[in-house]
């Protein structure tokens, strides 16, 4: 899968820009704050229908404008596909795939599979469990339509249950029949989501270890464990056992909304025992493992977006990583970097072609990348 053309209109600090990516390696260079990351986020938005950085639509619109529009041409096998996102905050956001409006965004997500790696991802090790569940959900939603549907259903039911628990908490003689009815509905989605998450983490672990070996200078044992109350008892028992506690507290204390991931290095918790370098390698390996799993499950090369990955890495490490990214394991890769010449020089040394854009205050200027010796044409 190759993203060939990307058009941005009123997107963050871009008034209007068109970028052409006629290569599987795309380099976006520019100083911080110029908009490199915004280009990656535009690609992410087109794939996942929202910003990776959790920004609301109204914060994505260029200053003093009322809408933004993103457009992409993507080559998928023999097919050339067009996707357009038209977003005017306050109105329904519209996605158009090959000229037809997408009725449900949940059905669209996964059409163009994507994985992004950003500097702030190291927070995955430190923040609350929600960010790690989101990591799981974003990955599973791209491979399994049913997963997203079940997740939406689960979230709605949980909200209903918590509302009910709050109402019952002040009740001297609560009517538990309704609680039982909602609990019964929760069984199906809970089991489904739990099962898929468990399967996913099992498949992810060998890949995590494999990529950690590739990207980390030292050889440590790394792993990612799925933590869930459902590993120890089934959802029926769990809800029944916690029912009186839930009623006393006025919210749901048990279920897959409490799931978490436990990151380990040499058997010990990552966040306490890893150095900054090890942490960064772990997160990168985790994302590359996710990427690989996504490609395998979807039988196509997903897009890989790497934001500022080479920051503070020496030339040797950058070369190592580029060699990996240019191997057959990866498809089209987008890389941002602050240095205009460092990475291009390394890629040329590796005899590989690439596309480069210089991003400067919301504009994108193509840089002529002199051809590597064994290529035919390059622009």
């Amino acid at each position: 899968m190759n993203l060939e053309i990307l058009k941005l209109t009123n997107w963050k600090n871009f008034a209007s820009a068109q970028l052409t990516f006629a290569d599987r390696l795309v380099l976006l260079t520019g100083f911080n704050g110029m908009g490199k990351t915004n280009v990656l986020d535009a690609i992410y938005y087109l794939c996942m229908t929202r910003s990776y950085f959790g920004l609301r639509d109204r914060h994505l619109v260029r200053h003093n404008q009322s809408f933004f529009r993103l457009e992409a041409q993507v080559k998928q096998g023999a097919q050339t596909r067009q996707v357009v996102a038209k977003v005017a905050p306050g109105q329904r956001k519209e996605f158009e795939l090959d000229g037809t409006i997408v009725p449900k965004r949940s059905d669209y997500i996964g059409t163009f599979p994507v994985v992004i790696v950003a500097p702030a991802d190291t927070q995955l090790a430190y923040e609350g469990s929600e960010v790690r569940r989101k990591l799981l959900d974003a990955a599973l939603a791209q491979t399994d339509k049913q997963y997203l549907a079940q997740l939406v259903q689960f979230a709605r039911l949980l909200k209903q249950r918590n509302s009910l628990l709050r109402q019952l908490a002040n009740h001297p003689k609560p009517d538990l029949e309704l609680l039982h009815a909602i609990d019964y509905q929760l069984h199906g989605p809970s089991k489904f989501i739990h099962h898929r998450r468990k399967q996913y983490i099992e498949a992810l672990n060998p890949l995590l270890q494999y990529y950690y070996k590739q990207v980390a200078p030292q050889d440590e044992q790394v792993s990612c464990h799925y933590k869930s109350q459902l590993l120890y008892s089934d959802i029926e028992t769990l809800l029944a056992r916690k029912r009186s506690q839930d009623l006393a507290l006025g919210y749901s204390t048990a279920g897959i909304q409490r799931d978490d991931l436990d990151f380990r290095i040499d058997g010990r918790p990552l966040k306490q025992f890893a150095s900054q370098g090890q942490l960064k390698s772990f997160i990168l390996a985790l994302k590359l493992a996710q990427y690989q799993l996504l490609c395998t499950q979807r039988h196509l090369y997903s897009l890989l977006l790497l934001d500022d990955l080479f920051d503070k890495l020496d030339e040797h490490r950058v070369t190592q990583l580029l060699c990996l990214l240019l191997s057959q394991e990866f498809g089209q890769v987008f890389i941002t970097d602050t240095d205009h010449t460092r990475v291009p020089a390394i890629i040329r040394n590796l005899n590989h072609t690439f596309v480069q854009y210089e991003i400067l205050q919301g504009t994108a200027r193509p840089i002529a990348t002199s051809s590597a010796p064994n290529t035919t044409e390059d622009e």
Partner: protein
Amino acid sequence: MSYSSKLIEQAVMALANLPGIGPKTALRLVLHLVKQQPEQTEALAQALLQMRRQIRSCRICHNISDTEVCSICADKRRDTSIICVVEGIRDVMAIEETGQYRGLYHVLGGLISPIEGIGPSDLHIDSLESRVAQPEVEEVLMALSPTIEGETTQHYLARRLSSFSVRLTTIARGVSFGGELEYADELTLGRSIVGRLPLQWGEGQNNT
């Protein structure tokens, strides 16, 4: 818009309050009335007023009715052994339209949704229970929308009615049945009423 007449403006505003009617349509309707004889507007106003003053809900099934007991409940030819539970009066109309159902109805007046503060006591559930307690009732057919709230309501009713010796059934779903009951086409809805299924419910059963 400037109307040059306070009277016209008033009438337009009143009509534009109705669902699906914008100021432009409202103005067209008002100007149409102005062109007609005054008697026609009087007849219209009279019909609306009379409808609004005299319409009530059926004492038995809570369907909309001109009389204390609606024409369906009063119809001696209807099958009193089966009660079809629906969310609203438009569902009654949709099912009647299919011509496939000859039993009675029970209009809940909504679906259970704690988020919106709608609990069982806000719906006509107590009266359903007293009806189901009547010996001639053999079957309760749930025809609620296939949404989360529709299903919650269905499971709740199943629990409440489990102590009565009635058969609980639900309309066959999985047919192309896009969303709300009232939008289902006649043929599909008719088929799903004929092909109704025993209701699955309770702890430890598969949620399909």
